[in-house]
């Protein structure tokens, strides 16, 4: 009696949870084919890659719960491309591996942007691509090694935290090309390049746009942790860009106090902080800090007449909930940067040291008609000034 009650209760408890969760993995939810493919250069290429994955003709993989396993077998677009990494040692086969920073490849942030760059290379160059998600910082070197020992030709490592492990791997495997996203490399190794960005310039443009659009004279920034130099650069650029347009503007900005532990993963903190800024008069909010910043954008979207500005990629694509406020995004174009470097490696003109990727403002999308022509002209002027060095963002990298 007691025993059967117990068993029944256990089953009643565990099964619905499992079933509910299992059932949720619909095939449409392929993590990597998320609706983020509209990066300018990746767009035409991304189209064909996603098609085969969605088609039910991939017979064995057609189970509704198929999610993770679909990954490696996903047919590449280019004909005759390799389907596994057993032939990576072959000269003719191009293999590209990506090691994420601690986190996931679908983080709506830099890991994802870099992976999309690799996916674009898969489509354009017929490369075999794969990724590995780092679970803990102690795994960096080991994860790079997993690719290196399978003779991958190009290894992309994402995030400044992997700089050291990347440089060391570069020493050990001189025949493999390493692309370090957000990493500074000094150029002493011919096979290692750091893809870095002048985030302060993107921030400066965002600040100029925010100040131009603000009616109240107060604008805000809700930021991830200041332990990440890129976040500091975005912030300083934003404040100085706003002051360049309107010296009297009030910029209220705040970092998440939680460091790496929660600085980029706390959307509710971002949202409530954005609300606090709006409540004291801010009418444009810059959300820069992964999911924390995304929380801020979504919060602003619920307040009529307020604008928000996203970060890193064109967040029109990544945060559809924010369409009602998102006037633009301060972009650092990781995706095309990674693709270009992979192409350069293939074509034999691989740079070393650092390679500056593009930064800039994302399209205005629905707000194209709202933003006055003179503001657009001014932004173009600033953009040109930043490019030729006549405008200084005032950001000094701390060391």
């Amino acid at each position, binding site marked *: 009696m007691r025993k059967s009650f117990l068993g029944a209760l256990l089953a009643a408890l565990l099964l619905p949870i499992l079933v509910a969760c299992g059932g949720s993995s619909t095939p449409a939810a392929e993590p990597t084919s998320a609706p983020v493919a509209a990066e300018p250069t990746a767009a035409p290429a991304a189209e064909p890659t996603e098609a085969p994955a969605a088609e039910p003709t991939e017979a064995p993989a057609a189970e509704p719960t198929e999610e993770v396993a679909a990954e490696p077998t996903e047919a590449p677009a280019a004909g005759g491309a390799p389907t596994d990494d057993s032939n990576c040692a072959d000269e003719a086969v191009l293999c590209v591996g990506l090691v994420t920073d601690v986190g996931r490849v679908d983080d709506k942030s830099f890991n994802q942007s870099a992976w999309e760059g690799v996916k674009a290379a898969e489509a354009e160059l017929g490369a075999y691509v794969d990724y590995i998600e780092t679970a803990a910082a102690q795994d960096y070197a080991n994860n790079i090694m997993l690719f290196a020992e399978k003779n991958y030709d190009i290894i992309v490592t994402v995030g400044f935290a992997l700089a050291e492990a990347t440089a060391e791997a570069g020493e050990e495997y001189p025949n493999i090309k390493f692309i370090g996203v957000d990493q500074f490399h000094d150029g002493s190794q011919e096979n290692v390049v750091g893809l870095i960005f002048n985030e302060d310039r993107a921030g400066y443009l965002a600040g100029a746009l925010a100040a131009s659009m603000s009616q109240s004279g107060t604008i*805000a920034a809700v930021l991830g942790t200041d332990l990440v130099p890129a976040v500091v650069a975005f912030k300083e650029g934003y404040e100085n860009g706003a002051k360049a347009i309107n010296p009297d503007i009030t910029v*209220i900005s705040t970092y998440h106090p939680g460091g790496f532990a929660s600085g980029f993963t706390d959307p509710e903190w971002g949202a409530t902080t954005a609300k606090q800024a709006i409540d004291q008069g801010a009418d444009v909010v810059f959300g820069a800090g992964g999911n924390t910043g995304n929380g801020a954008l979504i919060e602003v979207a619920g307040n009529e007449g307020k604008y928000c500005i996203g970060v890193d990629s064109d967040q029109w694509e990544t945060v559809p909930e924010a369409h009602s406020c998102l006037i633009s995004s301060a972009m650092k174009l990781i995706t095309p940067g990674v693709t270009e470097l992979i192409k350069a490696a293939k074509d034999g003109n691989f740079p070393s040291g650092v390679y500056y990727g593009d930064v800039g403002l994302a399209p205005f999308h629905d707000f194209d008609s709202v933003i006055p022509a003179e503001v657009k002209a001014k932004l173009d002027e600033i953009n040109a000034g930043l490019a030729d060095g006549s405008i200084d963002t005032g950001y000094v990298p701390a060391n």
Partner: protein
Amino acid sequence: MQAINSNTQARSVNLPWRLIVGLGVILLLIIISYIRSPQITTAVLSSTLRQSTPIILGALAGIFCERSGVVNIGIEGMMLMSAYMGFMFNVWTGNLLLAIVGTLLVGALIGAFHALMSITLKVDQVIGGTVINILATGLTGYFYQQGLTTSGKLQTITIPVLSDLPIVGPVLFTNPPITYAAIFLVVIVHLVLFKTRWGLRTRAVGEHPAAADTVGIRVNFVRYVNVIIGGMFAALAGAFLTLEAVGTFERGMTNGRGFVSLAVMIFGKWTPFGSWGGALLFGFANGVQTQIQFLQSQLPSWLAWLGQIPNQFIGMLPYLLTIIVLAGFVGRSRGPAASGKVYSKE
């Protein structure tokens, strides 16, 4: 038994003079601050209430469990799991009301799971809570999927007339539904716990299960029901995150709020109002630390040194304040005597 009961009664009924003085000082400070800057005062107080909402709901979850004698350190996992399921229900049904009902059911299920472990299987309750915490991280992360969209989140309800009042209006009467519910629930839980037969039974079972048993209270039944209710409260906190405050789910988005709830519950000595005080204190300290950062760029010159304080130190404010208030003013917190102990008739 008798002595213990009157003790708990006294704790909740007699307001100590220190509390009254404290409330008076806080009120005075709010008024002064309002006169100096109505906008900032309102902004910080709104943020206080909002940040305290998931915390107090989590703490109420803990109160239900622990008052009946079941320790619950799995509030964090319960919140995270139900935040995820709430979001998924919203995606599937597109109906917020159904999503909330679904979330509460999930919360009840997780609560029942905790009760099953703690009561029937006699698993140590700290372990049971830890199992829930790890399981929630694992399951929500494993089944997380990107790119899901919903039809929306719970919207602000403005209460006519009252919302036009200065400070009180925008802070208390311009909120979304779960925030209102949280305030009501503090009062309701207090009444249930201290003014109803069920509350008396709950406390009896939590303080002295053997004695409760002899007067005919079904100890384990009372515990089951209370832990399930507790799970539903934690689920409401999760629903607050994904259905009201943010509207989407991200991995690990509870970020320790469940553990803070646990702290706040002990801080409030296992009473709803005490815990609410703790939650508000915590929310306030968070709002203030944000505000200090906001103001750092516009300080008068004699205060410029404030702008030099690294934000990591400002970020410590909520935690330091909690410790100071706890050690200096709240003092010893004594939980329900039978909390954490399995009860079985010998």
